[in-house]
């Protein structure tokens, strides 16, 4: 077993520098690496390009990095649930590249899988197609999309072991398994880190080979973005 355990986000983020490109897992505030984000705020790295489905809210998630103007470019499918984000985007301080959600997921997965490019119908005939090759297969039009390149992929899992194996819970899985292994270095933040051998090898979602550094987060807020409930009868 190759031990990937590090002491925490500080050690995990060693080598992260200004102007690097990061993939950050999560959908909304669900399944985000909270501790790593907080650590990046404290590190003060700037000029970051973040590939992440959303951009957090004003005081949580990637919103914390936006607030400190540490992000130069956001590559996302849906943004703007965040007033500071809006301000920076409208003022031109922040570059935003909007990408169809399935294309975003597949471009991460392609990077993980060594597939340099693939074809998808999403965005054909729209402004997303600008500057991209299109091609017909069996009478339908597709765009060629290339794999993302990232210096770090930062994912969040429910359980992990010292070998870097990850198990996700519920919809907190989302982009995390697609990004694991898609950056030059993959950092996994987990709610519970166990010794190798404690996870059933059949239940592992992300095999440890895709993860270089793993740690148990000190604290998880796991904030709910849209609390919707029904009354008990």
């Amino acid at each position, binding site marked *: 077993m190759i031990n990937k355990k590090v002491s925490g986000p500080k050690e995990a983020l060693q080598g992260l520098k200004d102007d690097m490109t990061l993939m950050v897992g999560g*959908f909304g*505030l669900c399944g985000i690496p909270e501790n790593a984000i907080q650590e990046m705020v404290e590190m003060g790295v700037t000029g970051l390009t973040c590939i992440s489905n959303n951009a957090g809210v004003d005081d949580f998630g990637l919103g914390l990095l936006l607030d400190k103007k540490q992000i130069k470019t956001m590559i996302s499918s849906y943004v703007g649930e965040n007033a500071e984000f809006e301000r920076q985007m409208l003022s031109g301080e922040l570059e935003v590249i909007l990408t169809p959600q399935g294309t975003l997921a597949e471009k991460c997965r392609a990077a993980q899988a060594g597939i340099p490019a693939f074809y998808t119908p999403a965005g054909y005939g729209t402004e997303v197609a600008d500057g991209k090759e299109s091609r017909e297969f069996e009478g339908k039009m597709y765009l060629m999309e290339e794999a993302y390149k990232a210096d770090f992929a930062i994912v969040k899992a429910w359980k992990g072991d010292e070998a870097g194996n990850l198990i996700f819970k*519920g919809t907190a899985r989302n982009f995390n398994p697609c990004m694991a292994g898609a950056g030059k270095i993959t950092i996994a933040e987990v709610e519970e880190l166990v010794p190798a051998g404690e996870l059933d090898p059949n239940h592992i979602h992300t095999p440890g080979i895709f993860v270089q550094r793993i740690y148990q987060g000190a604290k998880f807020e796991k904030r709910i973005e*849209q609390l*919707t409930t029904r009354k008990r009868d």
Partner: protein
Amino acid sequence: MALDKNGIAKRIAKEVKDGYFVNLGIGIPTLVANFVQEDISVEFQSENGVLGMGPFPFEGDEDADLINAGKQTITTLKGASFFDSATSFSMIRGQHVDLTILGAMEVSENGDIANWKIPGKLVKGMGGAMDLVASAENIIVAMMHTNKRGESKILKRCSLPLTGVGCVKKIVTNLAVLEVVESGFKLLERAPGVQVEEIQNATEGNLIIEGDIPEMKL
């Protein structure tokens, strides 16, 4: 009388057949789940990674790790499964989802749809909409027939940036059910009490009226 949002959802619910896997967009489409017949089996997919979505949780039972694509807390039903985003869009792109219901700002005669961007206004992004409309074989658009200024949203050509081209097959509005055919919008049904003339006046695109147009049954 023109339908309200629940009325549109109720009419669309009749398009949901036994054995369908369905993806519901945000807004009116979400309401459709409330009106699906009880005697058929349907599973709802949400693109953030869940199949077999159930109703909202009881107060206090919410789980931050269990949300839908609208970031709302949800529950799951028996037979549910969780998966990653790439797998989720394999379901969508691979046409395993039988029916996609989503809202629109504009639809054109040739089935183009615009629902993600208004130039000059804040753009929030297309989310999964471009993947959904480019892939789904069976798309129903839920929308109001006209905008707040009374202008038609059922057009010859979309004026807004497109989400997808030539993909819309059926539209359910507050006034009518329309089918996108070769030469325009074929009027299939009228909302209860709504006359053909009213629909015609609210439709900028070519409206095809053949024979008697029945009233919707809700």
